[in-house]
């Protein structure tokens, strides 16, 4: 499991946000944190999620999220295991 940061641009609705979170759960990802903020565009929100996820699932999740009707953009960056600081 590696930490990933997913940034998802969503046409605003409660259902759309929940659908993103459910899809994330389907990928067997562990949600560490999530933050919703305004995107600057009317009716569009920016969801930033930090997830613990099997590396091979990351691309699938990115594509799966992009399939969702209310999702306009998805970006993903790998953050690593988060263990390096502990070992230091």
């Amino acid at each position: 499991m590696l930490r990933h940061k997913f940034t998802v641009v969503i046409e605003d609705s409660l259902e759309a946000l929940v659908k993103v979170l459910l899809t994330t759960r389907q990928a067997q990802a562990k949600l560490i944190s999530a933050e919703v903020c305004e995107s600057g565009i009317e009716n569009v929100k920016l969801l930033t999620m930090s997830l613990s996820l099997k590396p091979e699932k990351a691309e699938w999740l990115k594509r799966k999220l992009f399939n969702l009707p209310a999702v306009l953009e998805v970006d993903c960056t790998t953050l690593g295991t988060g263990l390096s600081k502990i070992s230091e």
Partner: protein
Amino acid sequence: MVRAADALVKAMEAKGVDVIFGIPGGATLPFYDALYDSNIRTILMRHEQQATHAADGYARVKGRPGVVTATSGPGATNLVTGIVNAMMDSQPVIAITGQVPREALGTDAFQETDITGILLPVTKYAVTVKEPSKLAQTFVDAYHIATAGRPGPVLIDVPRDVFQADVEPHWKDEPSLIKYALSHLARHPQEPNPELISKAAEILMNAEKPVIIAGGGVIISNATEELTKLAEYLMAPVVVTTPGLGSIPSDHPLMLGVIGMHGRVEANMALVESDTVLAVGVRFSDRSVGRFDDFQKGRKIIHVDIDASELGKNVTPTVSIAGDAKRILAELYACIISRTARKEARPFVQRLKAIGESFDEFMNNCGEPSKITPWRALKVIREELPRNAIVTTGVGQHQMWVQLCFKVFEPRTLITSCGLGTMGFGLPAAVGAKVAAPDRTVACIDGDGSFTMTCQSLIPIAQYDIPVICIIFDNRTLGMIRQWQDLFYQRRYKDENLEIYLKKRTKGSVDYVKLAESMGVEGAVAESLDDLRMLVRRAVRTGQALVIDLPIDREERVLPMVPPGKWLSQMMVPQGFDFHA
């Protein structure tokens, strides 16, 4: 100003909706009232799950969304199985549910349930409409979402007072969601990458033993012609997944049949022997390819699918191309014919075809010549049904026998529950299929276990004169359960027996003739293969609904079978048949 429900009905009419399957309830009465003045036909089913299956069957035959409606609470929750079934098999079903009035939401009101929350993970789109003026536009959006890209079910949940509110009847025929509105303006559907097409073509041209796997995506994208042209040019055999049955005629010389756990010998062996696989509109389910690691070994894989999230999900392809099957197959064909001559017939295909033919011969000659075996019965049914007849099935042994030996000649003529494996799907799906294609013969080949789950679909068959032929493979057992308990649980049979105690404590079967007749449909027992032939022939000729009870031996097994966790080469075949010989 008009009622929002009236605007919704107008939007549905504008989209070409001609039928709705469902059951009314308190929360949907304004909707039904609006439908009173519409030409949209309503079919009163007797259970909402069956209404969803009917809408699903309609969608599969027609190639456009089927619409189902249910009231709030239990009506809505009864939809769940049907909706998940449509999701798993990528079928565009639009569900419209009633909901308690907006001011009662969250009060645990009578028949209130959060159906949007329940269906959110298993639909492409699920929304509760809170603003009456948006109801008609929401339908247009949902219709678009259900059909765009990989199709799937959608839910529109409507509080009763939203249906009843007065609104200006304004909506656009185009989707309002930003994502689709933008792509609508840009008018650029997913373009296949030319470099990937070229690379895939190169691999296919150089393959010694190429095999094409056609999945449900080929049928959804109406790509039969393109698939056939490419296969014939490459002289590549075609194998299919269960949803892909019908993507190429069963009697085409290059068609080897269905693959998988209950796949045909020659089809599974084709995959085992292949050096290259072109998989189109396939999601590589565990039931189709067995072990993913063995499948990956020693062969190049080209995967084409409209859903980019399927590419690389279960197997890692050599080349993966996202896009519509019809277009990509056409581009592959164009690329290949510009670079190489038509390929010669491949000896391994002839060899595998011969194995398949000897297997059919073996199965047709098993046991006493007069015995009703599934293979013989299906041969008789096929001979009596028109070539373009539509056949639906339930789920279980009978379904697997159909996929193994029932010939399917045209796309959208075998309607079966694949991904979810929903017992009881066959009869209500046949209702939808017959409504979609009233001029064609529709037959449901069912098991007794499946049939009893949704047999009240006979009532709308009688009520609306929807003449479906239903043939029950009656082995008085949950056959597939019995088969697994036999093979993998040391014959410790448990709860597979469907026999009932009749008067005088004699064991027997449900009387399907009386059951059918109690619901207004004629029933008959086929005591022999000749009886079966005569009954099917009469039903086709007269165009009347008929239930045929076909008693079969409960010890019949579905073979070949690949045991769970094994590779396709480890098929179990009937005793006495050796496909290596």
